[in-house]
């Protein structure tokens, strides 16, 4: 829905490969003395020490080999704590990571492939870097949820596409908002792929120069403002379906971490605050409240999955989040025109006072939600 945005979830996922890591790569400003000197060559990987205290660990890497190399700090099961790819021959790089106590390996991978050459690294003191099985469970469940939403969207989008192709204006209008629900619930995951969102969910004002306008909102404009379905719309409907199928196929490969889930929940509320509350999202159909509800549901799903862990660390925060999710949902319910489905008041009928209340409720929820990620990983 945003025209040009960074794949924030992806970035977060890369930066936080696990709950044990809270910091990541930095350039060469690390303190020199405590650093582990790592000398990488085509067949060797030497380290200046095999044991360091827990906390900020710094690797000063020099590539003396002839090939570009990659250096990683790895958990015993090969999950990455932190890494730097593509360190060129003859160059140096400083890698820092926040590492908890435990056994690790430093891997140099000349040519950036294979098992690489490895050295043991023992990190002492502090708490052991136990991986939290509860968080693993949360991530797995959220992955399933993202897939379900994509699968379901394909069904609903199929109805929409069929109606457009049949030239059935009324049926197409009816199917438009429902076709977006699964997408809106998991949008940060979808956006993490970078290339799909611009094709399916760009608004007119979000187009870059030279970009062809495709996707839901292009069809929305044709249906509500143009009031007719031509050959171009039928073609575009087909493309929407194709692009959504691409998403459905790839959603399982998205990098998802507890942090990216929490940040994704907050981003869904950001979407609400900047797009839905203003009525910009569905400016022709005025079905903004359907998208609004879907965003909130997606955020709530991620939150509920992380809640068992978050509640142990900050019960006041989860108490506040419970209250504010309830308050926002209760407020949204007052705009439902169909208690069992997804029929909401047309947003052009919601006045300034009503919009302000919605905006206040979104702020009330998004502010504590912005603290969830740090709470989950701390």
């Amino acid at each position, binding site marked *: 829905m945003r025209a040009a945005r960074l794949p924030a979830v992806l970035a977060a996922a890369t930066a936080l490969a696990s709950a044990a890591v809270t910091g990541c790569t930095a350039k060469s400003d690390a303190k020199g003395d405590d650093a582990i000197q790592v000398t990488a060559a085509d067949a060797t990987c030497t380290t200046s020490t095999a044991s360091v205290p827990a906390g900020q660990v710094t690797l000063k890497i020099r590539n003396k080999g002839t090939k570009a190399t990659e250096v990683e700090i790895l958990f015993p099961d090969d999950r990455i704590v932190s890494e730097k790819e593509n360190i060129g021959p003859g160059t140096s790089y400083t890698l820092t990571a926040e590492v908890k106590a435990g056994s690790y390996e430093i891997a140099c991978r000349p040519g950036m492939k294979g098992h690489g050459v490895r050295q043991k690294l023992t990190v002492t003191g502090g708490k052991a870097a136990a991986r939290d099985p509860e968080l693993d469970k949360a991530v797995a469940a959220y992955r399933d949820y993202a897939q379900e939403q994509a699968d379901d969207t394909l069904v609903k989008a199929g109805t929409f596409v069929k109606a457009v192709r049949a030239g059935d204006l009324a049926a197409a209008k009816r199917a438009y908002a429902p076709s977006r629900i699964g997408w809106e619930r998991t949008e940060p995951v979808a956006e993490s792929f970078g290339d799909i969102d611009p094709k399916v969910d760009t608004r007119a004002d979000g187009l870059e120069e030279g970009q062809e306008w495709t996707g839901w909102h292009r069809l929305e404009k044709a249906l509500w403002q143009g009031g007719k379905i031509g050959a171009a719309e039928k073609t575009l409907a087909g493309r929407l379906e194709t692009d959504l199928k691409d998403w459905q196929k790839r959603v399982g490969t998205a990098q998802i971490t507890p942090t990216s889930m929490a940040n994704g929940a907050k981003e869904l509320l950001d979407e609400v605050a900047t797009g839905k509350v203003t009525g910009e999202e569905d400016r022709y159909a005025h079905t903004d409240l359907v998208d609004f509800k879907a965003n909130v549901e997606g955020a709530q799903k991620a939150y509920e999955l992380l809640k068992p862990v978050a509640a142990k660390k900050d019960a006041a925060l989860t108490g506040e989040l419970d209250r504010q999710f309830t308050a926002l949902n209760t407020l949204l319910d007052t705009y439902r025109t169909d208690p069992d489905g997804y029929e909401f008041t047309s947003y052009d009928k919601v006045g300034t006072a009503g919009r302000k209340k919605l905006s206040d409720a979104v702020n009330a929820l998004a*502010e504590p939600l912005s603290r969830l990620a740090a709470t989950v990983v701390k």
Partner: protein
Amino acid sequence: MTRSTAGQEPGQSGESGEPGASERSERLRSAPGRRALLGWGGAGLVLGAAAAGGAVAVARAGDDDPAGTGGAVPFHGPHQAGIATPVQDRLHFAAFDVTTDDRAAFVRLLKDWTAAARRMTAGRAVGEGAYGGLAEAPPDDTGEALGLPPSRLTLTLGFGPSLFDRFGLAGRRPAALVDLPRFPGDNLEESRTGGDLCVQACADDPQVAVHAIRNLARIGFGKVAVRWSQLGFGKTSSTTPGAQTPRNLFGFKDGTRNIAGTETDRLEKHVWAGAGDERWMTGGSYLVARRIRMNIEVWDRTPLREQEDVFGRDKGEGAPAGRAKEHDAPFLKAMKPDAHVRLAHPDSNGGVTILRRGYSFTDGTDGLGRLDAGLFFLAYQRDPRTGFIPLQRRLAASDALNEYIQHVGSAVFAIPPGVRDASDWWGRTLFSEEA
């Protein structure tokens, strides 16, 4: 939500500036004000208030303080700062609505706000600062005031009449906190009127004032929501005696005899609530805020003589009609019967005196190409029933200025007493049982 309020933010050396404070304050006190006083309400009806009891004090250090730690106004005292404090150059005023029904959560907010205000008025960042914290969490402080001196920031909290409909407070609403009557000519916009709470942020740097309101609003999410807010840029009153009187956007000096911050007796008599009021209000005050839109373009084509007649002063010097100097005592009978100064003068109002602390505002243009500008009138008084209300009744009925102005926003607030010390908090005397 828990936002830590202790802790020193990184990057700032943590002086809250005790040593040398008094000598620096002397320096500032004697320094000539950039502009001086005056609001427009009447001919200076109100003279400026002063730093009574040392609490309302003057700034701790001057703008020329090389350490950049200067210009902090003490937050603690029997009265809230920002009333008798020498008027700063800039304003950000915000009215809030309460959005929670949970009294405990609201009290917690008042405590969190107090802690944040204590830090910000000392020139420090909120909570754990604007950087250096957990990378996965947004910083506590929004950061735009980093590196700026305290800029004499004052934060003044008030409770609106509608707050007393909540939290079982009905029995504690002061009689003086009346709903303002409708005055002839009022054209109040709902979206600029009322509020359960207000915070007045005044500072010599607009960024410092905006930062303060922004951070308080953020801390308040879920408990309160901003109802409306107003930026002000040019003070129209001064509470510093002898200072030059600032001009309003009509180009006139007005309110040349505001209560001075040093006039303890007049402050006690006209500004601070006390005997006869609710006990929890002792040391507090009442604030009336009015957004007064000026018909700038119409005024600008008014002949000079008419302009001077409307105010009852000359435009250049600011002297009252028939007098030579700005601070000469006005001879009211020399003015037209409907002259603004004459109608607003205490002598025409049985001695009614209020402390004015207004600011000019310009919110761009109004969509018709006209300047959306005027006076954001702020007046502190012991009791609006004997202060603003009779005065405004009189002005609304007859003031020649009415042809050029319109009141479009209005609010009244009870200003509780000051926060006494580090363990005290805004509104304790109202919310705490032992108070």
